[in-house]
Each structure stands twice: as structure tokens, then as C-alpha cells.
């Protein structure tokens, strides 16, 4: 199928981007790397929108340390995440996660902000943000706000972003010495969306476990975390997953199989944290 779009405009500045979004009166969609959006346009799953291209805005780029957090510009590409020394030092979870995202060509174009705004429940980066307790910085023509990652993802391809808002960056707490970052996923083929994935961060505050591929959004395994953070056993935590997760069946895997794999991943991620 051929994509059907109402138009394309390249934003010259963030302000220009807001103007374009406003002028389209809700009939606009922001495009950056386009790695999910263009595919959906070509399937005519989304159409008749104005594409507002923010790829060329320097204020959305950059990987820097900023006021005690790691700040990643929204246009940070997955390939940059994989290679940036600051990311490797302060948020190695993302260094591990980046190579798991799709294929090399997609990693060269796809962006962090795009992945978060798209909110695919089986994608790696949204779950990582939750595991890392990151904050997502969003801006609109007249406002800027910070949204905690676990409040950002609301459902299938749905986020807390409001009309006219654009993700500009994410702030990630710095990894402390002794913290452990581990991500594991189970995919049929290298580069596929995960059947089940788990991003885990262990710090002095305890362990944070964010699953992806098991719900309509990435989810914290709250019950398992509570057990583990109060000194409970791994097998008790595994049992708690029964209530934490409510996966559905689809052509790739049944709900029972996903539950089973979630338990396998929990044991493996916790073992990795101990062994690493």
C-alpha cells in the first residue's frame, strides 16, 4: 500500500515545530527516525496527518551529564545509545538494551524519543526507562513538564503526552558503584520484538523489575519487587508474578507460555545481578 499523508513539514526550530502542530489542529504527527511511523503509514494504519519532522533540531540532541543526572536528547539514536561512553558508565542498562532493538539499519535511524512516544508494549526502551526510574521531559508551546516513566506509559501505543507536546529529553539517575543493570529478552529471531523481556536495576533502594511484552504497556513487577526488597526468596518472587502480570495470548505465544517465560527471565536476571 501507498502511504496517505496530508503533508510534510520540516521544523526549523522547536518553536516552529509547536507552531506546525498547533496549525494542524490535532491532525499532525511528529516524525523523527520514522522507523515505526512510516511502516504504519504504509499499512494505512494512520493516515491523513501532517508529518512534522523534528530530526534536524539540535536542541533535541546530545548525551550529557546535567545536574547530577544523565540527560539523553530525544533524538538520540539507538546506535548512539549502544556506543556512548557516558551511557555505558552511568546507565549500562541502555548499552545492553540498544543492540536488542531491531536490526542495524533501524538502530541507525530510530530514536529514543520516538520509541518512547510510540509506546510499543514489547519494546525495550520504555521498560528500561521504568526500571531506571527515569523522568521524561516534554515541552509544548507554553509549558515544560517532567513525567516519571512509570506514569508515562498508559496503554497500547498510548502515553501521557498531550496534544502539542514533544519529548525533548529523558533524565536518568546515575548508576552508583555496586548497582546492577541487567536486561534479558526472549525473541524467536534476533531483532524481533520480545515475546517476554525483563529490564532490572538493583541499587541501594532495592531492585526494580520492568517487564515488556506481557501487557498493553511495560509493567513493574510490584509484588515480586516487594518480596525481593524485603528479603524474600526468589521463588516467592516468582510466585508473586502470577498477580503482577496478566499477559494475553497472541499468534506468537499463549498467555501461559508468557507467564512461564516471565518466571524463567526473573530467575535469570536475578542470577545475572548476583554474578555480574
Amino acid at each position: 500500500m501507498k502511504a496517505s499523508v496530508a503533508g510534510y513539514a520540516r521544523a526549523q526550530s522547536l518553536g516552529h515545530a509547536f507552531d506546525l502542530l498547533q496549525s494542524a489542529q490535532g491532525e499532525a504527527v511528529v516524525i523523527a527516525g520514522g522507523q515505526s511511523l512510516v511502516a504504519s503509514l504504509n499499512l494505512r494504519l494512520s493516515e491523513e496527518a501532517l508529518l512534522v519532522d523534528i530530526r534536524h533540531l539540535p536542541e533535541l540532541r546530545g548525551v550529557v551529564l546535567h545536574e547530577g543526572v544523565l540527560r539523553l536528547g530525544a533524538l538520540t539514536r539507538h546506535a548512539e545509545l549502544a556506543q556512548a561512553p557516558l551511557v555505558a558508565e552511568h546507565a549500562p542498562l541502555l548499552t545492553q538494551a540498544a543492540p536488542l532493538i531491531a536490526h542495524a539499519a533501524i538502530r541507525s535511524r530510530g530514536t529514543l524519543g520516538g520509541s518512547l512516544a510510540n509506546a510499543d508494549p514489547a519494546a525495550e526502551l520504555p521498560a528500561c526507562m521504568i526500571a531506571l526510574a527515569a523522568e521524561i521531559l516534554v515541552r509544548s508551546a507554553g509549558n515544560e513538564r517532567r513525567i516519571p516513566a512509570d506514569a508515562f506509559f498508559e496503554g497500547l501505543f498510548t502515553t501521557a503526552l498531550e496534544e502539542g507536546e514533544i519529548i525533548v529529553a529523558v533524565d536518568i539517575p546515575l548508576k552508583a558503584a555496586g548497582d546492577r543493570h541487567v536486561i534479558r529478552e526472549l525473541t524467536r529471531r534476533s531483532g524481533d520484538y520480545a515475546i517476554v523481556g525483563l529490564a532490572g536495576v538493583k541499587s541501594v533502594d532495592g531492585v526494580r523489575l520492568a517487564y515488556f511484552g506481557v501487557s498493553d504497556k511495560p509493567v513493574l513487577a510490584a509484588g515480586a519487587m516487594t518480596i525481593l526488597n524485603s528479603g524474600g526468596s526468589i521463588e516467592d518472587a516468582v510466585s508473586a508474578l502470577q498477580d503482577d502480570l496478566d499477559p494475553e495470548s497472541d499468534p506468537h505465544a499463549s498467555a501461559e507460555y508468557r507467564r512461564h517465560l516471565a518466571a524463567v527471565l526473573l530467575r535469570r536476571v536475578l542470577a545475572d545481578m548476583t554474578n555480574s
Partner: protein
Amino acid sequence: MSIRFDNPDRPNSYIGRTVPRPNARRLVEGRGRYVDDIVLPRMLHAVFLRSPYAHARIQSINTEAARAAHGVRGVFTGADLAEHCTPWVAVLAHLKGLKSAPQHPIAVDRATWTGEAVAAVVADTRAQAEEAAALIEVDYEPLQPVTDMRTALDPETPVLHPDLGDNLTFQREHVSGDPAEVMRTAPVIVESRFKTGRHTGVCVEPRSILADYNRSEKQLTVYHSTQAPHMMQVVFAEHLGLPEGAVRVICGDVGGSFGIKVHVYPDEVATATISKILGRPVKFIADRLESFATDIHARDHEIDARMALDEDGRILALDIEDLTGIGPYSVYPRTSAIEGNQVVNLCGGPYDFANYRARTTVVLQNKSPTCQYRAVGHPIAAAVTEGMVDLAAEKLGLDPIEIRRRNLIADDAYPYTSPANMRFEGLSHHKSLNKLVEMMDYPALRAEQAALRENGVYRGIGIASFIELTNPSPFMYGIGGARISAQDGCTVRMDPDGSVVAMSGVTEQGQGTEAMLAQVTAEAVGVPVQRVRVITGDTQTTPYGGGTWASRGAGIGGEAALQAGRALRENILAVAGAMLQCAPETLDIVEGNIVDLGTDTERMPLSELGRVVYFRGDTLPKGLPRELVVTRHYITSDYPFAFTNGIQASYVEVDPETGFVKLLKHWCVEDCGRVINPQLVDEQIRGGIVQGIGGALYEESLYDTEGQLLNANMADYLVPMASEMPDMIIGHVETPTRESELGAKGAGEAGTAGAPAAVMNAINDAIRPLGGRVTSMPMTPERILRSIHHLPE
């Protein structure tokens, strides 16, 4: 003169050598010409509106808004096209009892699968045609779909085509010996059910056609991504009411076909029909979504098998009950009964036993039509046969290699007729087995497997022998009444500069046919391979032929090229003899030069001979034949098919916690007779293995109970990808066929034939200690995990 192909020092020794493909550079540089690259003046684009229902009556179609849409040049329903194109019924006389219903290029009053075309729009651009197609209003009355092949013949199930009486389209039972009695008395019986998943071919280049009817010449020219240009010429002529000579099918570069592109597709015939109606070129390129829904599917089989053996593990009898669902129509013109028929023909194929019963039952259903896809029926027959052999080995406590040694047809037993009445001219099962055991260092691998198992690592080794049907004679389709050529021809021409052009009826699909033809021609004539240009895929310029199917290109097309090249060589030498005043028998052609036979002393270059023949023919003796264009045809006649054989092995590791399978290594020893280009053959085998692994582990076209296709995209339909593929080690045994001088048999399907069986046996070898066994393909991690009871039912 017979060429001694086994002597690598012979002159012009191209046959048996890895020679670079003449078209590789062009394709890599992006200078190929696929159908979608062709743009003609006044060309329109066709788009098809497709049924969202698996089964529905079309009450009415309102095309008014679509006709008024921007850029639209025509909107056509099934009824519109029925006035210009006759329907077809895909049956063959030799498949007794096969029945099917008339099929139109666009559904006339009933849609019978999700994706069947119900209307066409042609517009100046594809986007405009899509916009307009969305404006067509179809009033459907949904009907109960037939989806489960197990209940397709039940009295409560609706009959898809009332005129046929029932949903049984074909049934064949073959019995030899007394299998019932042997099953009753044999000391060892094993039985199992197998399932192979419905899947499709997924060509990189989707189905593509550009039809151009020129009213001034009354000629239809069709640029077509197809395997069989001459077959398509016949089809277009017959159903559009044109003389065959008024239809020209041109097949340029093709981005893979695998059997997908050897069939008649309603939307492609519709495109040609619309071009004839409008008198304008019309292009249709299937997108990926419609490829999944409308390319032929295959392999949708459930098989119950029983095998009887004596105490020593010798096979006494095999009983096969096969059931397959083929969609709503038998596919034209090769029919959808062939696959089930092949299962009957091929089960037990590598083994020496006498008592055999096999029955295939072929039923209709509301899913995409199925038909011949790479290695038709072979992967099913091999999976069932090899699965049963391993099951028997397990029961008898025999090693899988040992039980095969005891049962494979002996290498000196040929000619041999199998219990399925297949005739084998010469196979090499034992030589191939021995070579495989050596290549993979079987004892060492078994030792490694055992050692790792102590550490909780579950690895498995799977072995699968197979036979492959190649070089088909008219017994495949021609005797059934289909105008499909089993013969093929080659015209070889020498031009004034001594260069050679070879025009062949076999076709290039990306597999290297043109490289093979260039090598054979170069050696036969005696010129450097770089001086040979090959032309294929044009019904108006090449000799009449069958094209690419059933692994026939090298065996049939190659032999025609060899004979034509040799005949040209004789003609050249006759002229050379006259020019050099010596007997032609004392001369030879080596690397483009006339030389003295035996000493290779150069006498003159072919360009000098060409100059004289073409421009100074007056200097040659009057009456001297000077025919530098020669055509030869070849058809097999001693055997209906040239069977090949081989054996594969797979080494896998299964994660017992997740059911995931890691493919560690794969081996294949195969015997396609004369190997013309070792690299091309090896890559054919490897590509075939990958496609076989696809069916074994990944690929399945999933339907729900309403007949909706659930995974018509590349994210949800899993094709095998490079990262997951194992290293593949390929070896050869060469048993040339004595039917031809070239001695080549086919190699294109061997990899696909045996790979699923080898992988299945390897997985089962790995999980046997856990009490697991999987016989349903694709063998997904979830199915594997369920079989070892690590997942609640």
C-alpha cells in the same frame, strides 16, 4: 565425441568449475530489470479490492464513487471481466477423480477466501487506485466458512461448490504388497501423527506483471515475474481468446520464485484482461500484505503413519494416511492435488521394503489456495518417513545411523522400483551416508552430546535421508492434458567476432540458470565463458520450453545447451576445415581459437572464421554449409523423473526452560549427478536448507476459525533469518544420469526436502531424555515446552 568431465585439465573445462555468475555484477550494482522497473507510455496501475470475509456472497458492488475518483481510468467487477476472459478449471486427466470449480479472474458472485479479489481499479498511479478502491462499496452476505480440514467432509459442513457435490477434491490410495497382513503379524510396530504447517514462499520480489495489449498489432505483450513464460503464453491466449502467437511473455530479472511464480493467479489474469479491454499497459505489483494472502500456500498436511519392522530393525511395511486442505479451488493449471500425490509417491522413498499403503485425501476449505512450493511434498514425506525411522530406532535401541544402514536401498540395487512404483536409475544412499558420517565425525559428536548432557545441556543429532524428484518428463503434467512443456531447447549462435549467444527456454529466477547455461555452452563450443551471452525468458525469441520447475533447469536446459553447443562446434569446424584445407576431424576449438587437435597449435581465431563467413562468404566453396546458428532440444524418455538422493544431519541445542532451539550445525551430502558449478549447487542446497528450516521452526500462515489470516506481515510471519541459521557443510556424491551426456540431475529442492526432517529428529533426540517428542511443524518453543511437560496444558 564424449567429453571427459572428470579430467580437470581438459580444454575449455568449464563444466564442474565455479565460474562467476554473468548477471551477479549487474544485479549487485542495482542494474537489474524487474517488472516494476519497466515504465511504458500510457501505463496504468491496477489495485484490487479484496474480500475481508473467508466466505461471503457478493450481493452488490457500488463502484460509482470509485469511478469518479481522481486519476481513475476504470473500475472492474468479476462480472465485467467475465465477458472478456473465460474461467478455468484446474484438473489433470491422470489425477483420476480430481475435481474443481470454475474460477474467474475476479470473484463473480461469491468470495471464497480472505484476500480474493472482488473488484479492480486502474488509475494513473497506484496511490490513486488505492484511494479509489477504498470508495467501492460491497454488500456482502457472510456465509459459513469451511476452515478445519478435519471436518471438511462432515455432513454438517457446508459444501463449498454445490455443483461438485462435496468438499472432496481428490483422493488416491496406493497399495503394494500386503501391508495389512504385515501390520497384523510384524513383531515391531511404531505409529505417530505428524503435522506440517501451512506456509508460503515469501519471494523478495513480490508477484509482478505488466500487460500491454496493442490493438494495432492485436498482440498482448506481458512482462511477467514468472517461472514458466511459455505456459503463461498459453494461458493468456486461451482465456483471452487470442492466438498463442499473438501473446508474448517476457520474463526479465526475477527476485526469487520457489514455485510461487509457476501458477496462474487470478489478479494477474485480470491485469492482462483489463489491458486488453483498455488497450493500454497495466501494471500490477502485489504488496507484501496481498502476497501473504494471495500467493499460493503449501504443506497444510496431517499424516497418520505406521511402520512395521522385524526384530533386526528391517522395515517390512509402511502405512500412510494423509489429509490436506487446499483452499477453495485447485490452482491452475498444475492443480493442487500434486502435493498430496507426491506424499503418496515419496514416503518411504529411500528404503528397501515391499509392503506399502498410502492414501491422500485432498479437501476444499476457505483459505488461500495451496499449490506447488519448492520441494513439493518432499519435506512432508521426508519428515514422516525419517520421523518413523527414528521412532523405530528408539524402540529397537538402534543408533539412527545403524537403522538406516540396514534399510537404505543398496547402492548396487539399481535400476530399482520402489513400492510406490517410483523408478530409480541410480542412487547412492550408502555412499552418501558414509560420507556424511565422516564429514560430521558422528562418533565424536555423539561423545560430545553425551558429555554435555551430564552438565544439563540438551543437544540432539538428527539424520534424514531423502530422495528428490528432478528432470520431469511429460508424465508430470503433459499426460494430464496440460500444455506445459517437459522438453526444452537451446539456440546457440556464433557472431562475426567469435562471440556466442545462447537462447534457452529455461529461465533465470536468481538461482544461476544463466551461469550454468554459459558454462555448458562455453565448454561445448570451445570459447571463453566471458564470450557467451545468455538470453532467457522471452517466448518470441527463445526456443519453446518449460521454464523453471521441478529442478529441471540444469538437467534438461543444460543438456539442450550442450547438444546445441556441440552441433555449432561441428559446424564451425566444417568451415574451418575448408578454410585451412584440412579434415575437420583434425581440428579442435580451444578458448576461442581453431587449433590442431592433439597439439593445440593455434591455426586461427574464431573471429577470422566469423569474418570470412559473414563478410567474405564468396571465398568459401559454393555449397559449403555455413550454419553458425544451431538449435537442439532435449527431453527425458527412459525414466519419468530423474530421482536424486541425499542425506542431511542437524545438530541442535534445546533450552529445556524455554523450549528455544539453537541450530548449531547442519550437514548435507547430496547426489545431483554431474555438478556443473559447485558453488551454485552448494548455495542452492544452503538456500534450500534455510527454506526447509523455515517450515520446521518458524513459518506458518495462521488462520482463525472464521478463516481470517492472522499474520500477513513480516513482523508476525516469521521467515528464517541469517542470525539464526547454522553453518551448513555441503558434500557431494556424483552419480550422473545415463539418460543425458551431461549427466546432470536437479539440485534446487534437495535442501528443502530433507532439512525439516533432520531438524525434527535432532530436536527429538535432544528432548528424549526429558520425555518429549514433537511432530507438529513449525516446532515452536511453546510446542517443544509443552511436549516436555514444562507448561501446564
